[in-house]
């Protein structure tokens, strides 16, 4: 591998990993917000029935 190859590898791995982590975090947050919305609706229905 040439020196340029080492530089590209280091930068692509670092920035790529950070971008993937950011995306994964965003996706986990969206999933959690959806789960909370469902739970809150269920809770509302529960108290509505009482």
């Amino acid at each position, binding site marked *: *591998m040439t*020196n*340029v190859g*080492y*530089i590209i*590898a*280091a*930068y692509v*791995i*670092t*920035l790529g*990993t*950070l971008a993937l*982590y*950011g995306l994964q*975090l*965003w996706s*986990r*947050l969206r999933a*959690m*917000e959806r*789960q*909370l919305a469902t*739970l*809150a609706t*269920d*809770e509302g229905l*529960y108290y509505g029935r009482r």
Partner: protein
Amino acid sequence: MIGRYLANGLGMVALLTVLVGLYLALVYAPADTLQGDVQRIMYIHVPTAWVAFFAFFVVFVSSLVYLWKRLPEADRLAYASAEIGVLFTGLTLIDGSIWGKPTWGIWWTWDARLTTTAILFVIYVGYLMLRSFVDETDRRARLAALVGIVGFIDVPIIYMSVLWFRTLHQPPSIQRGGASMPDTMLFTLLLNVGAYTLVYLFFLVKRVRLESLNAIAEALIAEKAVHD
């Protein structure tokens, strides 16, 4: 809502600063007289290492606060910061290895700096594993806080390892007496340190929010189970 706008604004500023840092690192900064262009890896290796240390310092402080005040927010902050710290430590080890091959001729050696950094990575992976093994919330937070505090002892050892031991790794780039590099390189390095610190803060805000939402969801599920 304002908090979310602020967090997203922080994300945008972080992204912009990383792009400027990338330009400075690859175009603006001069090549090193001894190592040539491969030394440009320093502009991501040092910032990722700094962020990892800072992240574990946040774990250390929040763990102390948790043990003292028993605040669940402090535990959530420690957990979020530990996860990001592990990510940055992993990147530090990979970048360092890629930089080591053309400069030292090897990908890895059991040198004091490298070994203590690998130990730090293992300690905090253990911290995350411990959290997933213990179900009871308070016990999990207490045990994790102990590991978060004791594990941080490794950080100053890593920093001092290049001064205490004979090692392949170069001494710290910036020391109390000044920096061992020209101003253009120092500026590029400091800007990149700032950029990756902003990335860390953005991830931390989002990760803490995830933990807070998770706590609300767990409370709702528990309440529902009681009523059912």
